[in-house]
């Protein structure tokens, strides 16, 4: 069945519209064709990826500027993925002024497109700063961990968009009706039985790494987790889903008894994975590291509750290795207002907004080995930033930073 477009959509494609809108419509229609969609659907919001200048380079920046110059404007609420640096405190991160200017130029192009009402606050956790779709809403999100959260925790429907594809969806307010927008593609493909109950956020991250490796692009159904009543449950789901999406390409998972869209247990024909111990998840992401020179918390971006836990862990301690927390700017502002930043900074830690270390010029900033309680963070630090990694629980990471252990 060929792709059917409405009169309005065809008009945009034929060039009656601005060049910016025509290009966006061409991208949306081409992706819909490629994936076999029969029609386009409206989207409630968009999350854009491809923000770091380190990844975009001169060509990406040039293209974004040109699109903005042509009059590209978002039609639906749109938020932006993290940048390579804190847009205000980049000097404290050791970012070179030349790089900072180019990163800011990327943000300015998105601001001109009307992202976040013209003043973008880059984050991989848009759902913590107000981009929080209602259950059943169709959205077009890039950023694999946010995609996982939208589908699995919020009960929205989104595919895993790429950078330009997400921008095109924001400019047209549409995406193709394919993939996870279709109920038949939201069915379970892997049953996961967890024997060892994960406790810490890092444990959930380790579990997610193992499930992601096994599930690949599928839809896992995880049994044996006691989510009900846990005040950190949203954070645990964030850690679990982010790791699944990094070590696999999981965009949707179910947790038995805790998912917004209750799923009947999968039938006997669905393959089964038994997770008996989480140590193998940690082992995936531990290099031979003699000395850690940065501890990074906040992949995905930390919530207020997570910052409070770090503040408690650092209380009265003195750091020998820098410990950086990354989060959305409104979350940082709230942490400062609630007095959570003070004990962290008193110990020698730092709270950075907007930034993600996985896409930062980490080696140029002088770091060679990084410890983090995030499997996703460790995976991308190793593979994108090119540094050695130690993936361990927060307590161990803090002990490393204070010099209690190496």
């Amino acid at each position, binding site marked *: 069945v060929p792709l059917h477009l409405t009169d309005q959509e065809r008009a945009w494609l034929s060039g009656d519209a601005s060049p910016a809108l025509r290009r966006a419509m061409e991208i949306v229609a081409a992706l819909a064709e490629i994936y076999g969609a029969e029609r386009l659907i409206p989207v409630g919001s968009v999350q854009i990826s491809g923000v770091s200048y380190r990844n975009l380079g001169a*060509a990406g920046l040039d293209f974004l500027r040109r699109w903005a110059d042509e009059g590209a404007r978002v039609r639906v609420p749109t938020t932006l993925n993290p940048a390579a640096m804190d847009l205000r405190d980049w000097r404290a991160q050791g970012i070179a002024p030349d790089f900072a200017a180019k990163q800011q130029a990327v943000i300015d192009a998105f601001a001109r497109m009307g992202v976040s009402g013209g003043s973008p606050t880059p984050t991989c956790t848009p759902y913590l700063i107000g981009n929080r779709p209602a259950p059943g809403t169709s959205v077009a999100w890039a950023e694999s961990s946010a995609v996982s959260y939208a589908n699995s925790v919020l009960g929205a429907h989104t595919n895993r968009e790429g950078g330009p594809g997400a921008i095109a969806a924001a400019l047209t307010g549409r995406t193709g009706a394919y993939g996870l927008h279709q109920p038949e593609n939201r069915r379970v493909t892997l049953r996961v039985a967890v024997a060892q109950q994960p406790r810490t956020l890092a444990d959930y991250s380790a579990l997610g790494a193992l499930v992601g490796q096994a599930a690949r692009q599928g839809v896992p159904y995880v049994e044996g987790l006691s989510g009900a009543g846990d005040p950190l449950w949203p954070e645990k789901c964030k850690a679990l889903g982010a790791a699944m999406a990094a070590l696999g390409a999981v965009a949707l998972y179910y947790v038995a008894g805790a998912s917004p869209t209750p799923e009947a247990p999968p039938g006997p024909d669905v393959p089964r994975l038994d997770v008996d111990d989480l140590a193998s998840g940690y082992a995936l992401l531990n290099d031979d590291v003699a000395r850690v020179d940065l501890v990074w918390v906040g992949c995905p971006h930390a919530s207020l509750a997570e910052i409070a836990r770090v503040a408690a862990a650092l209380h009265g301690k003195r750091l020998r290795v820098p410990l950086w927390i990354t989060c959305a700017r409104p979350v940082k502002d709230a942490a400062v207002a609630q007095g959570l930043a003070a004990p962290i900074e008193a110990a020698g830690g730092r709270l950075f907004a907007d930034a993600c270390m996985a896409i930062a010029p980490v080696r140029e900033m002088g770091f060679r080995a990084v410890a983090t309680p995030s499997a996703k963070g460790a995976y991308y630090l190793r593979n994108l930033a090119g540094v050695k990694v130690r993936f361990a629980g927060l307590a161990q990471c803090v002990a490393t930073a204070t010099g209690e252990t190496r």
Partner: protein
Amino acid sequence: MTRKEAGDRREGAPCTFEGRVIKAGTAEGAALVSPEPIGFLGGVDGETGVVTEQGHPLEGQCVAGRVLVFPTGKGSTVGSYVLYQLATLDRAPAAIVNAESEPIVAVGAIIGEIPMVDRVPIAEIHTGDRVRVAGARVTVWAEDLTTPA
């Protein structure tokens, strides 16, 4: 494959295929055919258009101005911007013909304004053939445009 091996069908009259338009446009050039997928980020130099992926069948060849024929794309989504960059530097392929398109190259062709068609039997096209892409139609002349007559 030499002309002789390609068979009599390829002598004289051109072959025509109807594909699926990914980026509408018209272009003509000498075919550069890869039996393997191409990843533009890390696989093709963004300033020269030379294929740099080690061990790739097209390693060392330049895509600029050619009708680039390959099964499908691969690799990082940032590869779309490499195609855009090649287009701004006038080093992009004249057109792209795929067996089955995927999003990275498709988006790159759209933002780089490179005519692109997929669902074409690419095994029928050989490096050096003269190829014209016009909308969904791909016309192939079995000439050897790469070596002097």
